[in-house]
């Protein structure tokens, strides 16, 4: 523990919001990923000025600092390394102002994603990015990870819904990036900050765009005898010129686990189930529903279940959203992966995912954003089994490689963090990585904002140099 840093923090905040107890350090020593870290101190600022004071204190003592929202990140982004100072933004959780006519709001970073939507429901609005973790993840974390969710297919991920932010930089200055005006002067610093995983500075206020609630919504479930048929249906829907609000897929193992958990009458014999939601004005919506059903049937859909009321719609979504809870009944641990492939490659890559997991003797379930080609293979295991973690990591690496080789990318929504840092050379050459490092150097010349994430250290590159040239796209 760094006594001088603690003294500075205590002077600037208050003693009860600067914590060094073993329990707290343990709690804040990692995020929802499997990577262990070590927190030196945890503090809970209430204002921008307190965040500023905490950053200044950390930098004065040469201690790295890590912004933390709710800690639900899955790539180790909020995992402190090297006894860093954890700056937890959870107490900065006010919605500061809402403009319901022009549809934006200024919020503090600790506001939970779903709370924001709840607070603007009365205006007929919502915050479009809806990660499955939306009950617990924070807007600050969404911004830092450029998070997505099922409904980002038609509406776009967080980057499309953030207009501006106030940021504390590592030199202690406070800067506003972007603005509620559409084309602020100069470089798009707001755009650069979104997805910077806490390595450019700490967002202390965020201006988010709000989206109109759709006048009408239709949700349907289609089941297929093969995963391929489901995946081909996805491609065919998009190719027909429709962009549904959501287009999600679950494979058999996943459907069975979910059905055993929520009893929604899901088709447990099907190899794959598609959850399709269409939202908008009534005539366009009905036309889309009819075409989607037709496309599904043409690809061999067994049954098509269209939710008849809001309760049934909620039930169908519950199946999708409780997948993580459901799998806990099968094995105690899971590792959730996140890669993106071109939609047309979904059948091929899914085949490879099954083969990889079979080879490593692991159970895999797939529940994912099929419309975006965003795969989420979920490896389930019991970590008490000797040697299982090695197999989990080996399989994970093969899945990432297969996705990139298929013309995809490393991550669709969880980010790079620690998890995929050393895979970055699969997608980017030295000059590409240098350009990303240059962005960071401009925002954080001190190098103390959440270091050792995203950018591989030069030594780690050699590890993946044998990747075939075709993987570069």
């Amino acid at each position, binding site marked *: 523990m760094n006594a001088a840093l603690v003294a500075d923090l205590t002077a600037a905040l208050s003693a009860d919001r600067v914590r060094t107890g073993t329990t707290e350090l343990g709690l804040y020593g990692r995020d929802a990923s499997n990577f262990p870290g070590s927190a030196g101190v945890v503090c809970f600022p209430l204002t921008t000025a307190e965040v500023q004071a905490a950053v200044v204190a950390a930098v004065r003592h040469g201690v790295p600092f890590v912004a933390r929202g709710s800690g639900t990140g899955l790539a180790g982004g909020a995992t402190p390394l090297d006894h860093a100072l954890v700056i937890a933004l959870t107490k900065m959780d006010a919605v500061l102002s809402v403009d319901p006519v022009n549809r934006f709001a200024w919020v503090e970073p600790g506001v939970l994603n779903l709370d924001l939507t709840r607070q603007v429901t009365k205006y007929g609005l919502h915050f479009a990015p809806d990660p499955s973790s939306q009950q617990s993840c924070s807007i600050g974390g969404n911004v830092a990870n450029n998070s997505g969710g099922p409904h980002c297919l038609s509406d776009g991920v967080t980057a499309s819904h953030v207009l501006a932010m106030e940021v504390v930089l590592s030199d202690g200055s406070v800067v506003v990036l972007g603005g509620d*005006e559409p*084309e602020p002067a100069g470089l798009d610093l707001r755009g650069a900050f979104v997805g910077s995983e806490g390595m450019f500075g700490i967002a202390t206020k965020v201006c988010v765009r709000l989206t109109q609630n759709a006048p009408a919504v239709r949700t349907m479930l289609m089941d297929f005898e093969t995963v391929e048929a489901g995946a081909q249906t996805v491609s065919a829907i998009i190719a027909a010129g429709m962009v549904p609000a959501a287009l999600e897929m679950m494979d058999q193992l996943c459907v069975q686990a979910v059905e055993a958990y929520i009893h929604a009458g899901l088709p447990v014999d099907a190899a794959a189930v598609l959850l399709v939601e269409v939202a908008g004005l009534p*005539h366009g919506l009905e036309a889309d529903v009819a075409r989607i059903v037709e496309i599904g049937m043409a690809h061999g859909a067994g049954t098509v279940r269209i939710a008849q009321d809001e309760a049934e719609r909620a039930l169908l979504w519950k199946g999708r959203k409780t997948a993580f809870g459901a799998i806990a009944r099968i094995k105690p641990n899971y590792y959730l992966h996140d890669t993106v492939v071109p*939609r047309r490659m979904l059948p091929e890559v899914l085949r490879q995912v099954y083969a990889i997991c079979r080879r490593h003797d692991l159970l895999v379930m797939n529940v994912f954003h099929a419309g975006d080609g965003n795969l989420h293979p979920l490896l389930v295991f019991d970590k008490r089994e000797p040697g299982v973690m090695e197999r989990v990591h080996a399989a994970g690496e093969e899945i990432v490689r297969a996705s990139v080789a298929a013309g995809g990318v490393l991550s669709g929504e969880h980010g790079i963090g620690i998890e995929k840092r050393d895979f970055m050379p699969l*997608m980017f050459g030295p000059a590409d990585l240098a350009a990303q490092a240059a962005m960071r150097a401009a925002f954080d010349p001190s190098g103390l904002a959440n270091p050792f994430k995203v950018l591989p250290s030069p030594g780690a590159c050699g590890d993946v140099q044998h990747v075939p040239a075709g993987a570069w796209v």
Partner: protein
Amino acid sequence: MDLTEFAAAVGGEGPVTISGLGTRGGPVAGVRCVHAPAGIEWVQADEMIVSCGAGTRVDELVAALAAHHQTVALPAGGTVGGALSVGHGDVRRLGYGPVRDVLLQARYVSAAGELVKAGGPTVKNVSGFDLCRLLVGSRGTLGFLGDVILRTRPLPQTSQWFTCSAGDPFDVFTKLYKPISVLWNGSQLWALLEGHPRDVAEQAAAAGLRAGSGPPALPVGSRRSVAPSTIASLTGDFVAEVGVGIVHHVDPWLRPVGDDRAATLAIAIRDQFDPGRRLNPGLDV
């Protein structure tokens, strides 16, 4: 010309400028000028992406995509590279989103003359920092775009302008669901609606709109970017983009001074990407 030849033309030394068709300002005068490769490499309609050289004409790209019943949310005219480097949307921005959301992957030539890749080929991608967002609107000062992958969008079944007289633009604006454009000049309002023909007709009727031609001629004295809530108090001869905050005004405009720290941050970025200021020298972003 391929990318390697383009990189060689940019080189690693001496001032150099780039030009498309010159519709958005053209090259820096008196400096050696290069042009980006042109041509559509491929259209993947089922993935809703297209790859082309930055020198490709926007109109050519739009025409090629129309054959696939798709389009791209770039303003008409000039080249793709020019549209991205300037980064200004057109009047459909309310519905189509800003230009910065269109660019998925770029390969550009850096100040050192190297080819650099930013972003990736899929619509959803959070692999590394978002260099693409930084390139859009950077006017070539961070690198010269060589080729790009853009996201496309389906063409609507119907697309129609409507109009009505309106003393308050927000009356109509709040009655419409996801309009593509709402323009207002202080007394008259124009709205572009897209989608199923019956939805379009019903929306228009409910908001008191009648079919009309649009968009109106846009005044060219200045193109202002203001908080969208402030447009109701505009005076003079203007057309404002409701819900967006772009104002086309006959009078010139002095942009209010922005955040000082943001300006020094932008300089720090340029110092990193082009310390010698050789790319489009003298150009202010």
